[in-house]
C-alpha cells in the first residue's frame, strides 16, 4: 500500500487533470467530488421534498386526491424519511461539506486517498440510482416506514414488500460501502495530513464536528449493514433471523421464530448515532459561522470540542429510547432514560456557548448568520421536546403521535437544514467565487424559518391530542376533534409554501453562479485556512507551491490592538497582531 504523500507534494507532482472528463467527471479532486456529492444530494433531497408535499396534500385534504391511495401514502412517508436522513443529510454534510472543507481547513492539498474518494462518490450515486429505481419496479418502493421494521416490511400487505424492500436494502448496503470509502478518507486526512502548526486543538470546530461524526459513522453503519444483510436473507432465502413464526393472510409461513426486536436494537444502534452523524457536523459548521459573523472568538472552544467528543461517545448508549414501547425491562428503560438525559448536558452546553458567543459580539445579520441564529431557535425547541420524550413515562402516551414527528423534524430535520443553508450561503463565495444574492437569501430565510414553525409548532398540539403518525386518514375517532383537521390543513398550506420557497434558493444558486457579485478574497473576514488560498475558488492542489503554516487557532477575531478585526490562522506573530 505504498501511497503518494499528496499532502506535502509540490504542485507539479499532483497530476493536474487536463481533459474535461478527468476534471469534471472522473475527478479525484476533493472539491469537484464535494460538488458532485452536493448536487446529487440536493437533487435527491428535492425528490424527498416533493414526496413530503404529496403526503401533506393527503393529510390536509383527505379524499381529494385520487392518485394518493393508502399504499402510495406509506411509500411517500418511507422514501421521504430514508432519503432525507441518509441520502440527503448524511451525504451532503459529510460527502459534500466534509469533502470540500477538510483538506482546505487543515491545509492539505487533497484527501489522502483521492482515488478511493472518487470511488466513494460513484458508489453513492449508484446507491441513489438503486433507491430511485424502486419507484419503477412492480409494487413500487417499500412502504414499511423508514425504520423498515420486520416482520411487516417483507410481508404481503405492506406496499413494496417484494422488489421495493429488496432494492431499499441493497441501496443501503451500497451506500454504506460508499460512506466507508469516504469516511476512511476523512478521518485519515484529518489525523495524518494536517499542515505544519495545525494541531488538533487548532482545528476549526467544523473539522472537529465532521471528524467525530465520521468516526461515529464508521462504527455505527456496520449495525445497519448487519441488519440489512440479515433482513435481505430473511426476505430472499427464507432464513428466520428476524422473522417470527407467523400466519399471514391465513397462510402459515415457513419462518421459525426469529426476533423482530433484535432488528429494532440493531437498527437503533445505528439510528441514534445517525442523529449525531448529522448533528455534529452541523454543530461544528454553525460554530464557525456564528464566530465569523459575530466577529468574536467562539465561547469556550475547549468545551465545544469536549462536548462534541462526549456527545459522540454517549450517542452509542442511548439507542433504546427509541424502543420504550416495544416492551423492555424497566431497569433498561431507566438506564436509557438516564443516558438520554445525560447527553442533553453537553448538548445544552453547546447551545449556551453559541449564545454566549453572540453576547456582546459585533453581530452582522448576514444571510448565513440569520440561518445560524434560526438554527439556535429550532434546535433548542427540538431539543427541549427531546427531554420530554427521553422519559419513559412521558414517551409512552406520546409515542407514535405527531408530537414525535414534530420533535424529530425540529431537531434533526429543520435544524441541520438551517445549518446547511447557513453553510451554503457562507461558503458559496469560496466554492464559486461569487456571492449569493442577499435579498433573495433573506426572503428564503424568512419563508423557511417562519414556515417551519408554522408547520411543526401546531404538530406538537396534534400529538398532545393523540393524533397518530403514519396514518393515511384519521377516520372517525372520538378523541380527535374536528378542529384537528383544520390544523392539519393549515400545516399543509405552510408546508407547501416552505417547499415552494426553496425554489428561491435554487434560483439564487443558479443565478449567482454567473451574475452574483464577485466575492474576492475572504469576503466575510474569516480566519480559517480555507479562505487564505492563493486563488478563489481554490485551484487543484489548493495552495500553490507552498503549504500554509499555521501560527494560531481559528478564532482570533477582534483581537485588541490588531490592524483588522480578524487574524488569519496562517499569519505569523508580529504581522498586524501587536498589542
Amino acid at each position, binding site marked *: *500500500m*505504498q*501511497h*503518494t*504523500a499528496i*499532502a*506535502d507534494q509540490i504542485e507539479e507532482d499532483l497530476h493536474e487533470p487536463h481533459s474535461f472528463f478527468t476534471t469534471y467527471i472522473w475527478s479525484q479532486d476533493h472539491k469537484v467530488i464535494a460538488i458532485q456529492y452536493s448536487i446529487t444530494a440536493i437533487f435527491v433531497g428535492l425528490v424527498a421534498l416533493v414526496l413530503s408535499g404529496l403526503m401533506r396534500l393527503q393529510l390536509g385534504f383527505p379524499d381529494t386526491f385520487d392518485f394518493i391511495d393508502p399504499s402510495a401514502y406509506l411509500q411517500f412517508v418511507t422514501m421521504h424519511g430514508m432519503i432525507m436522513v441518509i441520502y440527503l443529510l448524511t451525504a451532503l454534510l459529510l460527502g459534500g461539506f466534509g469533502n470540500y472543507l477538510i483538506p482546505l481547513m487543515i*491545509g492539505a492539498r487533497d484527501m*489522502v*486517498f483521492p482515488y478511493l474518494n472518487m470511488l466513494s462518490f460513484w458508489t453513492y450515486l449508484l446507491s441513489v440510482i438503486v433507491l430511485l429505481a424502486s419507484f419503477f419496479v412492480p409494487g413500487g418502493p417499500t412502504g414499511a416506514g423508514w425504520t423498515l421494521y420486520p416482520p411487516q416490511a417483507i410481508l404481503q400487505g405492506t406496499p413494496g414488500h417484494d422488489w421495493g424492500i429488496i432494492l431499499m436494502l441493497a441501496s443501503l448496503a451500497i451506500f454504506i460501502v460508499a460512506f*466507508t470509502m469516504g469516511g*476512511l478518507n476523512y478521518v*485519515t*486526512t484529518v*489525523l*495524518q*495530513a*494536517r*499542515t*505544519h*502548526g*495545525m*494541531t*488538533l*486543538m*487548532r482545528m476549526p470546530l467544523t473539522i472537529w464536528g465532521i471528524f467525530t461524526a465520521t468516526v461515529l459513522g*464508521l*462504527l455505527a453503519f*456496520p*449495525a445497519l*449493514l*448487519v441488519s440489512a*444483510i*440479515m433482513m435481505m*436473507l430473511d426476505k430472499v*432465502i*427464507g*432464513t*428466520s*433471523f428476524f422473522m417470527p413464526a407467523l400466519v399471514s393472510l391465513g397462510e402459515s409461513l415457513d419462518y*421459525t*421464530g*426469529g*426476533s423482530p426486536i*433484535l432488528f429494532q436494537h*440493531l437498527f437503533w*444502534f445505528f439510528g441514534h448515532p445517525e442523529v449525531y452523524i448529522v448533528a455534529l457536523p452541523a454543530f461544528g459548521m454553525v460554530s464557525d459561522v456564528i464566530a465569523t459573523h459575530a466577529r468574536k*472568538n467562539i465561547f469556550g*472552544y*475547549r468545551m465545544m*470540542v469536549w462536548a462534541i467528543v462526549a456527545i459522540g461517545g454517549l450517542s452509542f448508549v442511548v439507542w433504546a429510547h427509541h424502543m420504550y414501547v416495544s416492551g423492555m425491562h424497566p431497569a433498561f428503560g431507566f438506564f436509557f432514560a438516564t443516558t438520554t438525559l445525560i447527553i442533553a448536558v453537553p448538548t445544552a452546553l453547546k447551545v449556551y456557548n453559541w449564545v454566549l458567543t453572540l453576547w456582546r459580539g459585533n453581530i452582522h445579520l448576514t444571510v448565513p448568520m440569520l440561518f445560524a441564529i434560526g438554527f439556535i431557535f429550532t434546535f433548542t425547541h427540538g431539543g427541549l421536546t427531546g427531554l420530554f420524550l427521553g422519559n419513559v413515562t412521558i414517551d409512552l402516551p406520546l409515542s407514535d403521535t405527531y408530537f414525535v414527528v414534530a420533535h424529530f423534524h425540529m431537531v434533526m430535520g429543520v435544524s441541520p437544514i438551517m445549518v446547511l443553508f447557513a453553510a451554503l450561503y457562507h461558503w458559496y463565495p469560496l466554492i464559486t467565487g461569487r456571492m449569493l444574492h442577499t435579498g433573495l437569501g433573506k426572503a428564503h430565510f424568512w419563508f423557511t424559518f417562519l414556515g417551519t414553525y408554522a408547520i411543526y409548532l401546531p404538530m406538537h398540539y396534534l400529538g398532545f391530542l393523540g393524533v397518530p403518525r403514519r396514518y393515511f386518514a384519521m377516520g372517525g375517532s372520538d378523541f380527535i376533534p374536528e378542529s384537528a383537521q383544520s390544523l392539519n390543513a393549515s400545516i399543509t398550506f405552510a408546508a407547501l409554501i416552505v417547499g415552494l420557497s426553496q425554489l428561491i434558493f435554487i434560483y439564487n444558486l443558479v443565478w449567482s453562479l454567473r451574475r452574483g457579485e464577485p466575492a474576492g478574497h475572504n469576503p466575510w473576514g474569516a480566519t480559517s485556512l480555507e479562505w487564505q488560498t492563493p486563488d478563489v475558488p481554490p485551484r487543484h492542489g489548493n495552495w500553490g507551491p507552498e*503549504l500554509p*503554516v*499555521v*501560527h*494560531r*487557532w481559528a478564532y*482570533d477575531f477582534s483581537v485588541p490592538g490588531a490592524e483588522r478585526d480578524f487574524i488569519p490562522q496562517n499569519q505569523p*506573530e508580529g504581522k498586524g*497582531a501587536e498589542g
Partner: protein
Amino acid sequence: MRFFKTLGTKPWLDPTMVSTAGVALAVDPLAAPRTALRFIMGMVSVLFFLFIITFLSRSQYPDFQALAGQPWQPFSDPSRLWLNTAILALSSLAMHWGLWSARREQVNRAVVGISAAVFFAVAFLVAQLELWRHLQTMGYYVNTNPANSYFYLLTAVHGLHVLGGLMVLANVVFRVWYDGAMARLSGPLTLCTHYWHFLLGVWLLLFALLTSRVETINMLAALCGF
C-alpha cells in the same frame, strides 16, 4: 492518555508556537494507510461483534439448535473445520515469513512467501465452499435452522473479507513491482500481514463460537444479559 493531554491544550494562548504537528505524511508515507487500516480493523471488529451479539441473542429462542455437542449435529466432528483453520493459519504464517524476508531485503524469498500466502488463502476459500457443499449434502441448508443460517452468513462475510485482502495484496504487489521498488515492499506488506493475522483471529473466534455446545452458548448469552 496523549489524546486527553491534547484535548487539554489551550490554543488561544501562545500564538507564536509553530508546532511540528501536522504533515505526518512527509515523514512517513505509510502513516495514512496505517491509520486507515486501524479504522478498517475497528469497523470489521464492530461488524463481527454485532453479528456475534445477534447470534447469542437469537440462540435463546426455542427453535435454535447448536451446531455441535450431540452426535447428530453437523460439527460434532469438527475435523473439516480444523483442516480449514490450518490452511488459513498456514497462509498467515507464509505471509509473516514473506514479510520477514522482505525486511531483510530477500526479495525472492518474500515473493515465495507472498505466493504461498495467496495460495493458502485461496485454498481456504475453496475449502470453505467445499464445506458448504458438504453441509448441503447432509441436508443442512441456509434456512434449516438459525444456527445454520449464522454459519453460512458468518463464513460468507469472513470469506469476503479474505477476498478483499487478496485484492488489496494484489494491488500492493503490482504497484511495487510496477514502480521497480521491491526493496520498499516491506512497509505496505507489514500492513497486509497485520490484516491477515487479524482475519485469522476473527476466524478462530467464529470457529470457537460456531462449534460451541449449547451449554457454552447459553452461558455466553447469559453473560451478555440475554
